[in-house]
């Protein structure tokens, strides 16, 4: 029997980490992910895990130590947010290029500047091309479940890539919700033991990791990383199937909410999906065929699947909780529209940058987006595809 609990997103993540019992956790405090290493160090100091907790002096060192530990043959985990991830940035690329299946819990927060500790996705978007598998979570349950599935995906021989599980700072990380936990022994069996093929601590086979890799080889090595990312898609689905067998909870590359017969839809990630579902239900009661596509697997990006899933719609709005500051819309918008284009699916699409720096996104805001979509359907025109949602303009109160 699963265990019913009430936990915050951070507690849920720390609980998953306790059940996974990694060999090494190296982490540094930063709001709003700080609680994860806090909870975890109490597990360490109370003897509930076998983990060596390395209380590093920076996030750069956190990722460096995780790289060292994972290359040594250990399972290494960490958690961070925003500027912490920015400071790790150099090592984020090195971790994936060394094909080390490190698992990171990213509690999404606005990257400075100016300084802001609240939720948006600018931290995650800053590493979207770094070669990490990126899973997004609507709520504490998904943050927990994604963490339990992480190692099986990352450590798969055809993948061997690091993975980050994203959840919204404060909105998810600090909100206490009901959750169903899996029993410890079941988690242990599901996650399994890690047996790396080559590792530094195997003295029978000394290896060298992290070469100077010049013109003759780097291209092929990067292509191999790209191939591994492609392979990850099927592995993510396979692991989700096993997870469903254990828990009854079903996961795909994305979730379709009332999308089958929808005429207009929103595409978004993380906790906004919860608000959007509420609005979809409300609109459905009014006879409006609204739907939602919630992206779970952002990297690898499910290009064809998303394009097919959205192809029947009359208009779509893609919500980006990070501005790309490029005069061409947010990252999710670019990915979705690119996916549509290469699959010859022509659906009017509009982008909304929203929720920046923790700006609250209410059901009214989401409803406004659906109303805009109805207008697009009616007129057949997209006046300005690059829009803001919830932005206070000059003269507004």
């Amino acid at each position, binding site marked *: 029997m699963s265990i019913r609990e009430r936990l915050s997103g951070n507690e849920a993540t720390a609980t998953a980490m306790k059940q996974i019992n990694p*060999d*090494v956790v*190296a982490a540094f405090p930063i709001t709003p992910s700080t609680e994860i290493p806090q909870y975890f160090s109490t597990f360490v100091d109370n003897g509930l895990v*076998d*983990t*060596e907790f*390395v*209380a*590093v*002096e*920076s996030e*750069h*060192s*956190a990722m*460096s*130590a*995780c*790289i*060292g*530990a*994972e*290359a*040594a*043959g*250990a399972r*290494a985990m960490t958690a961070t947010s925003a500027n912490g991830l920015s400071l790790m940035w*150099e*090592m984020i690329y*090195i971790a994936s290029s*060394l094909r080390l299946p490190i698992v990171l819990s990213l509690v999404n927060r606005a990257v400075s500047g100016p300084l802001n500790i609240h939720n948006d996705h600018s931290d995650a978007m800053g590493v979207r091309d770094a070669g990490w598998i990126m899973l997004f979570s609507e709520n504490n349950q998904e943050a927990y479940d994604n963490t339990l599935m992480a190692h099986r995906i990352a450590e798969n021989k055809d993948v061997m890539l690091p993975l980050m599980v994203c959840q919204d700072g404060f909105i998810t990380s600090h909100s206490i919700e009901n959750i169903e936990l899996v029993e410890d022994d079941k988690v242990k069996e599901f996650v399994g033991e890690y047996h790396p093929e080559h590792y*530094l*601590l*195997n*003295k029978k086979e*000394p*290896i*060298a*990791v*992290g*070469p*100077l*890799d*010049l013109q003759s*080889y780097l291209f092929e090595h990067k292509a191999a990383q790209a191939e591994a990312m492609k392979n990850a898609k099927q592995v993510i689905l396979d692991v989700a199937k096993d997870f469903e067998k254990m828990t009854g909870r079903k996961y795909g590359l994305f979730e379709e909410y009332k999308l089958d017969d929808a005429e207009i839809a929103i595409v978004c990630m993380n906790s906004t999906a919860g608000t959007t579902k509420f609005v979809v239900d409300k609109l459905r009661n009014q006879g409006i065929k609204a739907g939602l596509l919630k992206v779970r697997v952002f990297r690898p990006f499910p290009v064809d699947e998303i394009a097919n899933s959205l192809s029947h719609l009359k208009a779509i709005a893609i919500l980006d909780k990070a501005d790309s500051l490029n005069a061409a819309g947010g990252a999710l918008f670019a990915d979705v529209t690119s996916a549509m284009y290469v699959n010859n699916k022509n659906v009017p699409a509009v982008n909304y940058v929203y929720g920046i720096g923790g700006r609250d996104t209410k059901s009214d805001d989401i409803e406004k987006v659906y109303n805009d979509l109805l207008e697009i359907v009616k007129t057949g025109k997209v006046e300005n595809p690059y829009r803001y949602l919830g932005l206070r303009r000059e003269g507004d109160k």
Partner: protein
Amino acid sequence: MAYNLKEVVSTKPARFTSGHRMCAGCGAPPVVRHIMRALKPEDHAVVGVATGCLEVSSFIYPYTSWTDSYIHTAFECTGATISGVEAAYVSMKKQGKLPKDGETKFIAFGGDGGTYDIGLQSLSGAMERHHDMVYVCYDNGAYMNTGIQRSSATPKFADTTTSPAGTVIPGKAQERKDLTKVMVGHHLPYVAQTLAMNNFADLYQKAEKAIYTEGPCFLNVMAPCPRGWGYPTEDLMKINKLAADTCYWPLYEVVNGVYHITYKPAKKLPIEEFLRPQKRFKHMFKPGNEWMIQEFQRIVDERWDELLKLEEVTNRD
């Protein structure tokens, strides 16, 4: 057993092998090879190297000069990288995931740029967290890999590409950082400063102590650079000896806070002897620049006197 170079070299195969691409006359390869020889033959090592000359010259894919396990990640984080490896070792050993027999030792190498400057935080963190490892700085006094830019290890007046000896500013304007003392301030079980001379005896003995002292240990090893310093390649060992005999680079160790100077020159040579053979100090010998040599001598004397006092004070009953 007394140290014997011939015996060490004949009984212990090189663990840093030939074929690397370091320059002729570079001080680093003999230092690295000899430190690696201080390992017991039966012990395995995981070596971490910071981005720099040693790293770009010793593991160019798919060839490596290292016979032990090796990891390079980036410039500023060798301390943290090796601390992660060591933490993995402690954790996995405790859980019975590694064979019970034999030991693995953890050695990090960084140049002065990767140690005194960009890697200082990572090094400091690793030492404070008390990982069982040795961090070796091979100090050639500038960013040589990128083309001889000044670092905080560069001595005053040295001509580098970012502190050129100009008509207004005569080379580096500041004194060099005393990193060895910074590491002593971390209260480590073993800190030493050394270089290669007298058949590598001082270097070997300190490496052995550092590797086989439990806890975080630090070695600062002067390793001249023929390109950056401007000396004929065959004069490497002469330059080393002059650094010790002028007390520019004192040889000493600090064991649990107690200082021991391991080499006191019978006759302390004037600093000109060390400066003159090096092109980076050439401008100091122009007429009218005598004040620079005097200033350099003053710094060397002050630091040497301070060291003598520290030895005296820390050895009092």
